């Protein structure tokens, strides 16, 4: 079987790979690009542990083919922290003990970021429905919802502060 040559961007880095036409984006990320943050929990798009974004859209990478991301921008959990600084969602997840075993955590973080990117002030219900495609078996979701809510509020506060600063400038 001949491979497909793909040029894409992952977490801002230009990346090239060759994969069989039937190989999933999840397998490409994990086995070819050494990005193991996305996990395979089901392989059928039911658990969200493999959540990534493709051109800003939240997807289950187990349902996307590697060949489909030619020219796209792929975002994974590995791209959330900037330099040594965790994304607010990441630090709130730790602060609120929103993870136990942690296997679902990368998927939740990617999904929560996709939510906050389009809705900076979600209600509890909006958080719960936005994360309904991500399964967690450890937490009962309680502390996850609280962490996302706290992150949204923190980001809003940070935005206000930097807004004031930029006005002053």
């Amino acid at each position, binding site marked *: 079987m001949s491979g497909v040559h793909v040029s894409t961007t992952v977490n801002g880095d230009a990346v090239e790979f060759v994969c069989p036409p039937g190989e999933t984006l999840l397998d490409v990320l*994990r086995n070819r690009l050494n990005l193991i943050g996305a*996990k395979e929990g089901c392989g059928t798009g039911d*658990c969200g542990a493999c959540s990534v974004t493709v051109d800003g859209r939240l997807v289950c990478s187990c349902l996307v083919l590697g060949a489909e991301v030619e020219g796209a921008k792929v975002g994974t959990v590995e791209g959330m922290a900037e330099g040594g600084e965790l994304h607010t969602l990441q630090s709130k997840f*730790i*602060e609120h003990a929103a993870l136990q*075993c942690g296997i679902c*955590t990368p998927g939740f973080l990617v999904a929560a970021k996709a939510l906050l990117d389009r809705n900076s002030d979600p209600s509890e219900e909006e958080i719960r429905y936005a994360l309904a495609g991500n399964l967690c078996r*450890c*937490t009962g979701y309680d*502390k996850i919802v609280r962490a996302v809510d706290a992150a949204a509020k923190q980001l809003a506060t940070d935005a206000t502060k930097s807004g004031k600063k930029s006005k002053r400038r």
Partner: protein
Amino acid sequence: MAETAPDTSFTNQDFKIIGTRPPRPDGVDKVTGRAKYGADAFAAGQLTALILRSPHAHAKILSIDTKRAEKLKGVKAVVTCEDLPDLTGGNRGMLDILENCMARGRALYDGHAVAAVAAIDAETAKKALKLIKVKYEVLPHVTDVDEAMKKKAPIIQPHIRTTGVDPKPKKASNVAARSQFGHGDIEAGFAAADVIVEESYKTEQTHQGYIEPHACLASVGPDGQGELWVTTQGHFVFRNTCAALLGMEVAKLKVTSSEIGGGFGGKTHVWMEPVALALSRKANRPVKLTMSREEVFRASGPTSSTSIDIKIGATRDGRICAASAELRYQGGAFPGIWGMLGAMTTWACYDLENCQSVAFDVLVNRPKSAAYRAPSAPMAAFAVESTIDLVAAKLGMDPVDFRILNAAKEGTRASYGPTYGPIGIGPTLEAVKNHPHMKAPLGPNQGRGMACGFWFNFGGQTCTDINVGVDGTVSLTVGTMDVGGSRASLSLIAAEELGIPYERVKCNVADTASLGHNDMTEGSRGTFSSGMATIFAARDVVKVLRNRAAAMWEIDVDDVAWEDGQAVAKGIAHSNLSPLSLADIARKSPTTGGPIAGHNETVADGAGVSFASHICDVEVDPETGATKVIRYTVVQDAGKAIHPDYVEGQFQGAAAQGIGWALNEEYIYGEDGRLQNPGFLDYRIPVCSDLPFIDTEILEIPNPGHPYGVRGVGETSIVPPLAAIGNAVSNAAGVRLNHVPMSPPRILKAINAAK
């Protein structure tokens, strides 16, 4: 050793950092995707393995032809049971494990492994599976626990003779064991009753549903040495089991526990790891074997489905005078202890003069049942706590008051034998009674229920090392894996004992070559037993630190005290000596006697039993039968909450699993004996939008058998939800469901039948 074993009794000490909520030390790894789980290890030259599984519920395997698969380019090894000879020396339990990993002449359930391949990639391995030809003779099957007990039922294990009955049966049956617990005179008790309620219940089979499928990376060389990277709740036990099944020497198989993506008991059992090792040995290459989600459902242990009869008698004044139960638990295709555990827990919440529980462990053509969080207790509690509500109603009593009146207390003889010390059932019930949740108004189609639960908890073999670095940081090495924040709680304990900041401790989970044996992380024992070993290892370190300080000061060690993380010279004679911190002493360690370390090896006895009481509000849609949990409160005794965030997390997670079990989750088998819903789409676990916030109240009734009073907290709260929801549904919809899950069709049927 016995005379030097430390005193494990509870001492009421003032804590400085126990009970605080610092960030977990593995947090950053787990939010950045760096943490490595079962499927996240890679080895040079690794092969990909796949397992061929039986499509039949019960069949004789007439032949397995692997020749064409072996010839396929890229295939490096094919194994069947021929490659896993019986080396168990008559140990039937071990042979059962081996036979479950790979069928031996008979396929006993849909999904039973019959052969496996290792190939250069997944594509090739998939092709190879298709080239393996298995000839089956399909046999009659049985998947229901009550059907399996009938005389004409197909026999699943012809060697089984029911244990626990006299005389010992001559004929094989599917009843592997009968067990009985209780005390008093049941008949006299029922004769004295003013009211008697008798009910029968069924619960369907559920899966632990950990999000991480089983995964391992095995490597065995021609020198007989091997390594296994695996997601497991007990790498030491996995090592011993795999080594025995493969004829390897224990010390020559190093097992490393990966980060574990949930287990809940399901990763205490060896399911496929011996197959990966056998493939690696045959191919002489590292082999990676991961289960698909479908395989997890079909071939790794769910918990039992059950059928339970309950009879409770009470006097007009509200005292239970007799209680009896018959419990039938299926263990899948191999004998288990699940019915026995169910029977032991049946009446554990109550102070009863006359009680009895009789259990049958039954074989069916389903995957081998596994431990699932407080294994077997939720089903028994569903039956008991539903019936308790009925008795209270018949007496015209408030269900909480009725429970308080009959609750077990210190000095109560437990139905399973022992006499209780200080316990939390009464206090959790009082907390429920006084909780604002109990007084909150309810809307139309809404109802409130409550229920209690019990779990034994466990201690077991434990071993912990502490090594002090020259900069005064501390490396804590444990053998129980971190599945929900235990690195944080154990680091807190080490820091508390040594008197140093939490951030100075780094907790590591060691591989089997780096630490002594530790039992499975099961029975809510992680923080209890590794915590206990950590306390004593730290106190061992303090002894060394005092000696070193004495040497540095050139005074007698008896004149050196350890206070607030520093050595202090006692007495006026030494008032000129400034205290030495742990870091001061560590810095000098190369010249004062070398490395500073402490360790502890123990069999951690004294695990304190734990009780919980839950309150639940539901809304039942009378048109569809759909039930929504709208408010939920957990009250549980933790003994002592080391890191309250992660204690709450255990309560919440356990309650959520119980809610899923109560309302949605079930294994659905077709007439053909095949599992029809082996995926998260059709086996639906609760999602974020299904649940409310789950409120928690931690009670702390110290466990007398632990220096800090710790009790295991992980399991108990999966026990009450089934009945709490059943009782709430009954109050909301006016119908009582005796069959779990209370799925919309079942509730709708009950509503329509009641019209």
